[in-house]
Structure formats: structure tokens, C-alpha cells
């Protein structure tokens, strides 16, 4: 089993949270039932976490 490629799945997890964050933010602006500030804050938090999962590893490697 080629473990290097197999184990590098944090971007996939990141993409999930980016999409979830985007859905929450989009819902805040488009769906009246979802137009609550908490959706905007949580959506932004999710998106930020998603970005961190996608690119955090690369940034750490560059820093090292």
C-alpha cells in the first residue's frame, strides 16, 4: 500500500468544511429561515478551518 498518497487526506476533510461553511454563508444571504447571524459566524469559522486543513500542512512544510 503506497501510504504517502493514501494518508494525505486532510485536503478532503478541508474541502468538506469549506463547502459546509459556504452553504451556511450562502444560506444566510439567500434563505430567510437561515438568515441568522450565528450561521454567518459559524459558516466563516467552518470555511476558515477548511482552508487550514487544505493548506495548513503545506504552509507548515514551507515554514520548516
Amino acid at each position: 500500500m503506497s501510504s504517502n498518497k493514501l494518508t494525505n487526506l486532510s485536503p478532503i476533510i478541508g474541502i468538506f468544511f469549506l463547502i459546509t461553511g459556504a452553504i451556511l454563508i450562502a444560506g444566510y444571504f439567500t434563505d430567510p429561515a437561515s438568515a441568522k447571524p450565528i450561521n454567518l459566524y459559524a459558516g466563516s469559522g467552518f470555511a476558515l478551518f477548511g482552508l487550514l486543513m487544505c493548506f495548513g500542512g503545506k504552509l507548515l512544510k514551507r515554514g520548516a
Partner: protein
Amino acid sequence: MQLHVTDYLIIAAYFAFVIAVGFLIKKKIHTSNDFLNSSRSIPLWITSLAFISANLGAQEVLGMVASGAKYGIMTVHFYWVGAIFAMVFLGIFMMPFYYGSKARSVPEYLFLRFDEKTRALNAVTFAVMTVFSSGISLYALAKLLEVILHWDFNLSILIAAGIVMAYTFLGGLTSAVYNEVLQFFLIVLGLSPLVIVALQDAGGWDNIKTQLAPQFTHAWKYLGDTADNPMGIHYSSLLFGLGFVMSFGYWCTDFLVVQRAMIARNLNSARQTPIMAAIPKLFMPLIVVLPGVIAITLMHPSLAAKGYSIPQAADGGRDYTMTLPSLIAHYYPNGLLGVGITALIASFMSGMAGNVTAFNSVFTYDIYQAYIAKGKPDRHYLFIGKFITVAGVLFSIGTAYIAKSFNNINDFLQLVFSFVNGPLFATFLLGMFWKRTTSHGAFSGLLGGTIAAAITHGLTIAEGKGGWISPAFTIGSGMAQAFIVAGVSWIANFVITIIVSLFTTPKPDEALKGLVYSLTPKAATEEKLVWWKRPAPIGWLLIGLTLLLNWIFF
């Protein structure tokens, strides 16, 4: 609770991603070792989060919030007395034997250390327990979705089981482990906003302490007398029953969690896995205990204007199990509601997938390969592993319907599991740290401990349960009864194993190298690592932090 398109989109995204993970990993699965054991190739951060997530099933999430509401801050004992010490012990003292012996499962370690009959007893009971646990998870998920969202029970069972089957069949253990990591983040991030908003609504921790009886906000102060605390427990049975027997029995011997550490890339990572997992575990009460304490505070007359109440059960009392779903419904608008529901679904599916992957490993290695078909080519075992994954999910569906038909079967099964699990840690403790322990001693101790558990339960009665031999002793709560049953069964196993071992012949020292503490040389490489990469210093630091938290919430 009414879901909108935003909520459905989030749930659909989650389902799509867990299956996508299965498809991505499928390409890398070539051997039975890849499928059942991840070829011991998983990095430390993944094994650590999977280790904690395998335990973060629905029973844990819903159950701990419910206990928080019922017993208050005392529920943290499951973490700060139970889990942390056992996880640190596993990492420092036990993983070298599990990992170093090259055993592929916990029952296989028992085979190497003792003999076939001890392995068979452990493998068969574990396999049966995991299938039933998986089915109960499935039943509880479908029941919850039926109650809160009015979704069709049968459809919920089929969808949840189908998704778990898809990703475990495609990617085996690796797929389950990666999805557990996704589920961990989803549960933590999905429930964090709830804690923040609800805590603010309850007036913060200071107001909670003012509104609630002091027994609900002190972890230790009222444990001197069983009549003084809502759990009806004395600190001695808490420390021994929960802190030692039950927690060490679960965290150190249950293959479902230990398996996550056994697939790490090397011995040091395997040892670090439970210790790294203990860091988030230390703070998990913020997510799963605090909401329960907040819920009970919100029901105080002074906070009636907040409009929250724990739902009523059929008997007119409070349905504590519904505390978390009712908090989600109360505080989350559409959008976050979808996240909250997805987090609940994730916790159920995580529990089920963990059971299915542990079941297929134990069945394939410890039952099929050991007794049914030895010496077959690897592709045969890969096929069996996949076949058993499907069979495990189908058995779980069957168990879910059995649980639906017989109301009391969940209680009954949990009881039988506790009879079997309670004494198990004594077998491992003696097996790993006393070279004189014999195979006959271990087997007799296990059987004797299980029988002692059943007898103790038959002689004690708590909340109307037990006392089926004679209700000779009344105990304050079901939880206290569980601690006492576990304690007695452990002592029985410990004593019987020692007595029988002293009258039977042990294995020669040569056969026990790498399996017993006194006969295993300490790894020299560990000494060269910086302190924060070694399990022991981090473990001791965590124990210090745990003691500090216990002192703060004394």
C-alpha cells in the same frame, strides 16, 4: 424540527464525502492487511483522532449530555477519573506488547500470551458484542430521526447502514478511520456554537453555580456519602469501579479503540496514539457534559423566559436522552440545524463503522483464519474480510430490528457486555506484568469473573433493575450498581487467575519475550527522542493537568 434546503444540502454533502473517502481509498487496497489492518501505515494525528472518535459514538454524545443533565458536573468523572488515566496507562505500559508482539488484534495477543481457548472466548464474545452494539447504534439513530424529524424508521436504517457499508466495504479500516477523523471535527465544530450560545443564555458558569444545587456543580465534594449526591455513589466505588476496573477494562482491552493505535506507523506512534488522544479527551466535557448542565439550569424558574425544557418521557418524567436534540432544536436556526443533525448522524455512523471494522478484523483473523480456513492465499482472506463487512452490516440491521421489537433487549445486552468486559482487564494486567500467569489461570479467571458479575447483579437492586436471585442489597443508582458489579467481577477474575496459575505450569520465559513486561527489553531508540516526542513525559503532564481540573471543580 423542520429542515430546510440549507440543512438538507449539508446532510447530503456529508453523505457524499464519506462515500468519496471510501472510493479514494479503494484504489490503495490490495491485500487483507491493507483492508483489515491499514498495513500499519496511518500517521499519528489520524490514529489519535480516530482513537478518540471511535469512542465518540452516539451513546457517548447523547448519553453524556443526558448524564450531565441528570447528575451534573459529576459526569466529568468518566473523563477525568476514567478515560485519561487509562489512556495514559495504555500508551506507556501496554502498547509495547500489543504492537511489539505483532498481534493483529487483541484476541490474537491473548493467543500469543496464553492459548487458543482464551483467544476463542475473547474473540467470540467480542464479535457478538460488536454486532449487537452496531445494531443498537443503528436502531437508536433511526429512532432519533423518527422522533425529531419524523423520518421513516426503515428508510433511515437502510440509508445509514448502506452508507456505512459502502465506505467500509470500499476502503476497509483506513476508510473508517479517515471518516472517524471527519466525524470528530464535525461533532466538535458542529456542537461548539451550541455550547457558546446556550452558556451565554444561561448567564455563564457563574450563574449556573448560583442557580443549581451545589451537588450539580461539584465533582467530588459530595461523594463522601451516597445519600448526598445525585449519582448515589461513594468515592471509593467511583475510584475503583469506574476509575480502575471499567475505564481500564474499556480503554486498555477493547479492540475497537486499541485497533486505532495498532495501525500506527511505528511503535512510538502507537504508544503516543492514546496519549495524544487524551489531550482532546481532557476537554471533551466542554462539548458533551456542559450542555447537559446548561440544560438543567435553563429549567430553573428564574430562566423560564428562555422557553427551554427537557422533553417529557412516556412515564411523565424527563427524557434526558433527548436533551441534546432538544437543545439543538431550541438554539440552532436552519443551516446550523443541518450541521447539528449531521453531527448526530456522524456520531451514530462513527460508532457503527468502528464496530463493523473491529468485527471484520476479529472474525477474519481470530475465527475464520484460526479455526475455519488456515493457510489460504491472501486474496482469499481479503475476499472474506470484505464479505464479512457486508455480513456485519446485515447482522447489524437484523439486530436493529430485534432492538425495536424487544424494548428491554438493549438493557439486557449492555448488562451481558458489562459481565464480559468488567473482568477482562485483570487478565491483561496479570498476563502482561506477571510472567507466572498461566493459560488455564487466565481462562478460569475470565469465566469466574463473568459468573461473579452475574451473581453480584442478581443480588443487588438499583432503580428496579437486578436482584433476580434475591434483592439482598439496594444501591442508589443504576450507575453505582454497574461500578460495583464491575469491581466484584474484576476482583474475582484477579484472585481466580492467581490461584489457578499457582497450581498450573506457566509458559517458558523464552516463549514470553515481547509479551510480558519483565521479559521485554526497553526500546533503546526512545531515549534519543526529545521529551515531547516520548509517551511518558506527555503522559505525566496530562495526569498533572487532569488532577488540576479535578481540583478546580472539586
